[in-house]
């Protein structure tokens, strides 16, 4: 083995250890836990069983919650993409100080803690909060809207916080497109709109793909925002899982829910990647 190769392996060790201790081990523990029998006076029992999987997959309530979680995440992802694309475009044309300022604005949702940010939303949308006050002041509504504890609010808050994860990779991809390509398209007779759909959009896909995957995965797994802004009214998988794990101390069943959610998410991500593999292969430099 050469010296360089030895160093490479050596430098990789911390990352591998970190992954092993904080990802592989807990995941393996989770899988094992999901096959444990339920305990009577303890979080789990001594034997092994697959009954929890049968219960999750057979019970309409859990399947409906899983579906709601995935659909909510899909809506968040789509809205996030629609809102972020123009932002990313604008950012990609900015240079120097202006670009820096825009980066800071776009990253701003990440700069406040999750509790502070959600508390901010609560204040804004409260019955007697500024949102209702302004809408009533402008005469759009006559009675205050109840926005708190709705799925719409949860979606809006998630879109807000995940925008940077969508904007930054798309901005990056747009910056990598040779500006002469749009000019070539225009000179060949394409309108600006055709140029966007035929050239810019497909070539920005190397940014769209990671953005979509990131936001989708983060949305499915989001716990704090749905818990705080959705409360008991918006039931999503993470809320159920936490309730099982820390509320009723049913660790095996909670683990099963978590594993099912992860597998469902992973399958969707893999399917999306496979469906878009051809385009990605073409547009990769």
């Amino acid at each position: 083995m050469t010296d360089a190769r030895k160093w490479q392996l050596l430098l990789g060790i911390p990352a591998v250890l970190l992954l092993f201790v904080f990802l592989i081990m807990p995941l393996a523990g989770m899988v094992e836990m999901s096959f444990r029998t339920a305990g009577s006076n303890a979080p789990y029992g001594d034997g092994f069983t697959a009954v929890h999987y049968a219960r999750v997959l057979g019970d309409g309530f859990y399947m409906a919650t899983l579906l709601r979680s995935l659909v909510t995440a899909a809506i968040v992802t789509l809205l996030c993409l629609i809102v972020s694309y123009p932002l990313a475009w604008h950012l990609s044309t900015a240079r120097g100080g202006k670009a820096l300022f825009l980066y800071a604005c776009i990253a701003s949702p990440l700069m406040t803690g999750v509790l502070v940010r959600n508390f901010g939303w609560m204040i804004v949308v409260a019955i007697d909060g500024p949102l209702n006050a302004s809408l009533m002041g402008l005469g759009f509504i006559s009675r205050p809207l109840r926005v708190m504890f709705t799925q719409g609010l949860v979606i809006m808050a998630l879109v807000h916080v995940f925008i940077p994860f969508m904007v930054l990779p798309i901005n990056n991809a747009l910056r990598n497109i040779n500006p002469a390509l749009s000019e070539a398209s225009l000179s060949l007779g394409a309108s600006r709109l055709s140029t966007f759909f035929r050239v810019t959009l497909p070539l920005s896909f190397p940014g769209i793909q990671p953005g979509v995957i990131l936001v989708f995965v983060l949305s499915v797994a989001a716990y704090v925002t749905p818990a705080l802004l959705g409360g008991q009214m918006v039931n999503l998988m993470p809320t159920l899982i936490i309730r099982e794990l820390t509320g009723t101390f049913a660790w095996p069943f909670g683990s099963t829910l978590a594993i099912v959610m992860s597998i469902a998410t992973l399958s969707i991500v893999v399917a999306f990647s496979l469906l878009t593999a051809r385009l990605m292969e073409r547009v990769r430099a």
Partner: protein
Amino acid sequence: MAKVKVKSLTKRYGAVTALDGVTLDAESGELISLLGPSGCGKSTTLRCVAGFLSPDSGDISVNDQSIVSTPSNRRDFGVVFQNYALFPHMTVAQNVGYGLLFRKIPKSEHGPRIENALRMVRLTGLADRLPKALSGGQQQRVALARALVIEPRLLLLDEPLANLDARLRDEVRWLIREVQQQSGTTAFYVTHDQAEAMAISDKVAVMKSGKVAQFATPRDIYQRPSERYVADFTGEANFLAARVLDASAGRFRIEVAGQTLDVPGVASLKAGDTAELLLRPESLSLDMDGASPRSLFTGVVSKAAFLGASQHCEISLGTGGVLKLAAPPNTSIAAGEQVGISVALEHAWLMPEVKP
């Protein structure tokens, strides 16, 4: 068939004046080169014509109709870029056929037209490849076919050979000229390579910091340049300071290096003007037997280098100044030798002295 006129184009970027009154015109079917060093405004001119930039003032017309306010997608011009600018996610055929999508051409005609364009640039059998699977020369051929398939009124090429290696450059250069002449398309061709410009152009515009220094045929810009800058940029040149004694109809009696000579030159010169005499190396010949009666100048060989097909010599004149010339390969020349120089005076050229 399109006659193109560019009139007094100006363009400023903040404090930088990129174009300062550029005027050019092309008869139908002509290839016009924009020649000049980097930063002189060639690309800016071309981009204004293409419609990617709008000039601050001036006019561009096609067949006497102004197009400055026409957006680039309505100008019907084909553009070939230095970096090819092929759409990386489309195959060769899709790239070439792209322009047809936006024209009222029946779908059934697309295939034959694409094939025809690819045959014209001598690229067949690669229609289903992606651009990244092609060599630079092949990519530039695709770019050329893509620009030509729409039968543009004007073909614009911005340093199309700059990214190719020397051998390919020659090949693609002739291909461009051939295809342009075959299709009868008017073309503007940007380059900083004088040999390239002279070889394929009907006319050359030599540009100098945002202005057109001279707009003429390749022969004229080489043999009858308007100023030293043009002469320098178009090839090897010797200059001698001269004074005009007498002028009549483009012929001048001048005093140069202690001699009185009759030479042709730029018509605007008048008696009493200070001027520069251009002597191209090929209009000079060495008299090896020292000074012969034919010799106009005498001097000492200060440098001699064997180049294969010729020898490069520099001669320091007794009256001051240095002349570069190409001597035949088989005469023996050594530094320090005293030699005479004969001049083909009908190929000398007198130009006004232009302060830089």
